[in-house]
C-alpha cells in the first residue's frame, strides 16, 4: 500500500511533459505516510509458518515414541525419560567416586578434552596451513601426506596414542588433535592461496614489509577461511570424543553413555544423545557467530 502511494507522483511526472521537475503531489503523499500508524505489524502467518513446523516435528517424534513404548518393554516412555532427565539435571555436579559423577562433570570433562586436543591442533594446524598456502614447495611436500591421512578414522589413531602416552586421557586428546588438525590445515592453506591477487599487488606497489603483508593483508583475508576450518574441526572433535571416551573410559559424556548401557539405563542414554546434540549445536552456533563477526564484504 505504501509503495503504491509512493509511486504515484513519479508516475504522473513521467506521464506528463519532460519539463516537470518538482513533483508537487509528493507533499500530500508524505503526509499520508506520516498519518498512518507505525507500520510493520507482526505478520502472524509468517511467524506461524516459521515456528509451527519445528514444533510439529518435535511433537510428531515424541508422539511416535510414546506410541511405540505404550506397551512397555526395555525402551522408556517419553514421560519416564523426562522424569529421569529432571532428576539428572537437578544435581549435575555430584561426585561419588571416579566412575559415578554428575552429568555436568561428564560434559565438562569431554569439553575439556576437546578443547585441549583442538587447541593443540589449532596451534600446529593454522601455521602449517599458512606455510603450505604460501610456499608451493611445502604444499607439494605435505599434500600427499594429508591426502593419505585425512580419510583415516581418528579412532584408528587411538592405539598409537595409548602406546605413546601409556595413559587413556592423553590418548583421547591425541585422537581429537589428529581429527581436528586436517580441516584447519586445509582451510587455512586454501584461504592463503585465495587471497585476491589485487591485494597482493597493492602490497607490492606499496612495498609493504613482509610483516605488514602478513598482519594487514594475509591474516585478515584468511581469517574467514580459518574460522571455517575451526568450525569443521570442532564439529568433528565433538563427534569423535564420544567414541574415543567409550574406548578409553574415565569421566566424560562418551564413557557415561557406555556406562549407562552396561547398567541398561536406556533413559540416560537417550538423555545423553540429546545433551550431545545440544552441546554440538551450541558449539557450532557460537563459532558461526564468531565467523560472522570477522567476515568482511569483499566489495
Amino acid at each position, binding site marked *: 500500500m505504501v509503495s503504491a502511494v509512493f509511486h504515484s507522483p513519479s508516475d504522473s511526472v513521467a506521464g506528463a511533459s519532460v519539463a516537470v521537475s518538482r513533483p508537487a503531489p509528493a507533499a500530500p503523499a508524505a503526509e499520508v505516510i506520516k498519518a498512518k500508524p507505525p507500520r510493520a505489524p507482526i505478520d502472524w502467518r509468517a511467524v506461524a509458518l516459521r515456528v509451527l513446523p519445528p514444533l510439529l516435528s518435535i511433537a510428531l517424534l515424541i508422539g511416535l515414541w510414546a506410541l511405540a513404548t505404550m506397551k512397555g518393554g526395555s525402551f522408556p516412555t517419553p514421560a519416564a525419560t523426562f522424569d529421569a532427565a529432571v532428576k539428572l539435571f537437578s544435581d549435575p555436579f555430584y561426585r561419588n567416586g571416579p566412575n559415578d559423577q554428575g552429568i555436568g562433570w561428564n560434559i565438562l570433562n569431554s569439553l575439556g578434552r576437546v578443547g585441549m586436543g583442538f587447541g593443540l591442533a589449532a596451534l600446529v594446524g593454522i601455521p602449517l596451513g599458512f606455510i603450505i598456502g604460501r610456499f608451493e614447495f611445502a604444499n607439494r611436500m605435505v599434500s600427499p601426506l594429508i591426502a593419505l591421512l585425512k580419510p583415516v578414522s581418528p579412532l584408528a589413531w587411538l592405539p598409537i596414542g595409548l602406546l605413546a602416552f601409556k595413559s587413556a586421557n592423553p590418548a583421547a586428546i591425541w585422537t581429537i588433535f589428529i581429527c581436528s588438525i586436517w580441516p584447519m590445515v586445509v582451510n587455512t592453506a586454501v584461504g592463503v592461496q585465495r587471497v*585476491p591477487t*589485487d*591485494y597482493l*599487488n*597493492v602490497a*607490492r*606497489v*606499496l*612495498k*609493504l*614489509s613482509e610483516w*605488514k603483508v602478513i598482519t*594487514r*593483508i594475509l591474516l*585478515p*583475508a584468511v581469517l574467514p577461511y580459518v574460522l571455517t576450518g575451526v568450525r569443521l574441526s570442532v564439529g568433528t572433535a565433538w563427534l569423535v570424543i564420544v567414541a574415543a571416551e567409550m574406548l578409553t573410559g574415565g569421566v566424560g559424556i562418551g564413557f557415561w553413555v557406555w556406562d549407562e548401557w552396561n547398567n541398561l539405563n536406556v533413559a540416560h542414554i537417550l538423555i545423553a544423545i540429546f545433551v550431545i546434540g545440544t552441546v554440538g549445536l551450541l558449539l557450532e552456533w557460537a563459532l558461526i557467530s564468531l565467523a560472522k563477526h570477522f567476515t*568482511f*564484504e*569483499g*566489495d
Partner: protein
Amino acid sequence: MKPFIQVQDAEMVFTTRKGRFHALQKVNLDVQRGEFITLIGHSGCGKSTLLNLIAGLLQPTSGGLICDGREIAAPGPERAVVFQNHSLLPWLTCLENVLLAVESVFGGKESPSQLKVRTRAALELVGMSHALHKRPHEISGGMKQRVGIARALAMEPKVLLMDEPFGALDALTRAKLQDELLKIVARTQSTVIMVTHDVDEAVLLSDRIVMMTNGPAATIGEILEVGIPRPRVRVELAEDARYVAARKEVIDFLYTRHAHVEQAA
C-alpha cells in the same frame, strides 16, 4: 629533453596452460614529465598489460622499461597504481587504507602525526573527508575509487598509473570524477598514464592518446596529440572543433581501421 618514462621494444609473452600467448609486440613509447597519457584500444589489446609493465607488476619477456633514468625491475610507490576495482582492503577504514600507503613511503622519515596529516590531506583532496572512518563496503563505488586515487596520490608518486579507474562507475559519477581528476592533476602536476576504453574520457583528459592495435601481438598503432589547451571544461568542449576532430580521429582508428573482430575459439 630526456623522456621521463621510456618503453623500448617491449615484448610480452604469457605462458598459459593453453600455450604461449603473445600479448605485446615491439612497444615503444616515451612519456615526458607532467604528461597525461591515455592508452586506448579494444578489450584484449594489452593496454592493461602495458600499464602493468610500467608499474613493474609484470616483467617484459624482452625489451626494457626505464622510469626517471632507472630500469623498472619491480613495483614501487614512485609508480602508484589506481586499480580498476579500487582494491581497497575491506577490513581497513578509508583512513587506514590510505595511511597504510603513507606509512610505507614516509614512515621512516616522519612522525606519526605528520603521517596522519598527509593521509587526511590526500582524502581531503579527493573530497572524502566525511568518510574517514567508514569501511569500503559502506561507501559507494565512486567513493571507493576516490579513496583509491587518494591512496595513490598520498604516496607522492613520480607517475600515477590508472587502470580503467572509472570503468565500473555510472556515467554521471564518472564525469564528476574525471572533472576532479583534471583539477587534481592540474594542481599536482602529476605524470599520468591511464588505461581506458572510453573515447570521450581519453580526449577530455589526455595530452596524447596512445591507440593500440588489436591483439594478439598488439602494439601501438598511432599516437594522437590532443592540442586542446588546459584548463579544459567539459561543457565548452562539447562543441569545440578540436575536441570533435580528436574524437573523430580516435573513433576512426578504433572502429574503422582496427575494428574489433571477435575471434572464434
